[in-house]
């Protein structure tokens, strides 16, 4: 079921996986990371964020790790998420698919720049 939900991969889910590609993050951390990597264009709301996290967890593309505190955000324990190897693989193939698209777009002179 989750595989159907993730095919095609929703933008929010892909952004979350990209955010987790660098480091393990809690929810708010993911939100901030996504905002940062999209220049503030995507600000995931709690509903969308946790709904996507749930889907990714069910598909075993991410996993929950031991809760811990985030020193910069007070002493509340937070759930942290980590990209699994399957998630990393899927994120890579999704990136490659997008790269292919980019290549096609450039070859059609829609987008400037060299071929990747």
């Amino acid at each position, binding site marked *: *079921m989750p595989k159907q939900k993730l095919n095609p991969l929703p933008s929010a889910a892909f952004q979350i996986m990209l955010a987790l590609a660098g480091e393990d993050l809690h*929810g*708010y951390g993911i*939100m901030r990371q996504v905002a940062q990597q999209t220049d503030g264009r995507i*600000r*995931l*709301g*709690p*509903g*969308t*964020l*946790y*709904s996507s*996290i*749930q889907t990714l967890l*069910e598909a075993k593309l991410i996993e929950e790790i031991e809760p811990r505190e985030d020193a910069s*955000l007070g002493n*509340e324990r*937070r*759930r942290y998420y980590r990209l699994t190897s399957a998630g990393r693989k899927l994120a890579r193939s999704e990136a490659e698919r997008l790269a292919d698209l980019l290549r096609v777009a450039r070859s059609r002179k829609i987008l400037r720049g060299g071929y990747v």
Partner: protein
Amino acid sequence: MSEKIYAWLLRLYPSRFRETYGDEALQLFRDRSRDERGFVPRLRLWFDLLADFALSVPREYFRVEPELVSYSAHLRSDGVPSFFVLADEPLGSGALLFGSVLSVAALITFSVLLNHGVKHVPLSALLRPTHGAADSRSSAFSPPAQQAATYNGEEGTISSAARRQPRMATNPSLQTNAMARNFQMDAPPLPESAEPVQQQSRGAASSLHAEVKLDATERHHVVEAAATILEKNYIDRDNAQKMANALRAHEKSGDDDAAADGAAFAALLTHQMREVSPDRHLTLDYSETPLPQHPLEPTPEDLARYREALKQQNCTFEKVEILPHNIGYVKLNSFPDVSVCQRTAESAMTSVNGANALIFDLRENRGGEPAMVAFMAAYLFDHPEYLYNPRENTTEQSWTRSPVPGNRLADKPAYVLTSARTFSGAEQFCYDLQMLKRVTLVGETTGGAAHSGVWHRIDDHFGMGIPETKAINPFSKSDWAEVGVEPDVKVRAGDALETAVKLAESKLPRK
């Protein structure tokens, strides 16, 4: 404050989501609130949150639970039913209270509906004759409520209601034209308790329970009187003489000696007459209660009671409605007195005036007044039509008063539902409209009661009814007497409505 609002909004999510991520969502809200201060950032925060709600709440409700997937997979694998609890939180007190209130409301509603259903008695049940003697074998030209007052030859007795109010005329010259009206007026339905009062008030109480002595003298008296009445009054002179001779011959040969009592004697004589001419309206009757000397005119109270009874029964219009496909449906269980029921009949016909086809349901119609037959038939024509009535000589009432002002049914397809219990006046309606090719009869062959009789008192306990008129039939030589009216479409009475509706629908213009 804003956190409280957000916490409240979180309740819009399914409980499963709230349980797993509610705290984290609230925490994320707090984090953002702390980091995004100032009017514009706060505005943007709320804009984000509301947009997020709009998108994610529906998605969460449509999310397929993994348990459901595994449940169906489980069923497929071994076929053994099992249960999964999707929500493991206990029911809240609010939910319990709501459930209780809903259950109580449903219980009350059901019991009220059931109660209502039991109390509902269809009008047809009220109209069915309750007297054994006035059952389907009785063939007088009168609606059920009035029929109780007519004689019943096959029983050899007069029905109890007739004994209460034996009002049939004894003077033939007065009877012939007014016959149907006499029958019709005969028996306003009376409550049982009224019986003794009625009898006493009519001066017949003196010999209420006098036993009749059925000796040779009495038998001879009855036979001779019956033979004389036949010779004087029966419509068919040849048969009248033959029947009179037969009665006398049977008496002479001692055939009548076997009759043990009055009822048996009356039945025997009726049988002897019908051997010569099988006429169901020809009957000799016995009444244990003495018959009054003179016919009694209905008192104003009787008439008032009769009118009241008719009105209570909606003039026996049991059902008037528009069926699907705009088919008018009129279920009429008698043809009652026009002077009482004209308005009811008019309003019934007005309410189906816009119909594209019309169904008259006469399956339980036991007859009535020829005037009402003509009154109802008038709606089916745009010009006056002659209606044949074997009981009456041709009068002004033999013609329909068509066209009826404002009537739009004159050219609409019309169907009449019949049964073996469709009798007398109802058969006249069927027969005439069938002969005029104006209706399609659907159902069973009707009862076959064509002639009506005139009552002749012989003595305190015996009397006889005989047909005395013969109208000219413009359509064919035979009417429905004895044989009934054959339907155009023969189906069981129970299926007649369905069949007629299908026929009507097939004739309606397709849209």
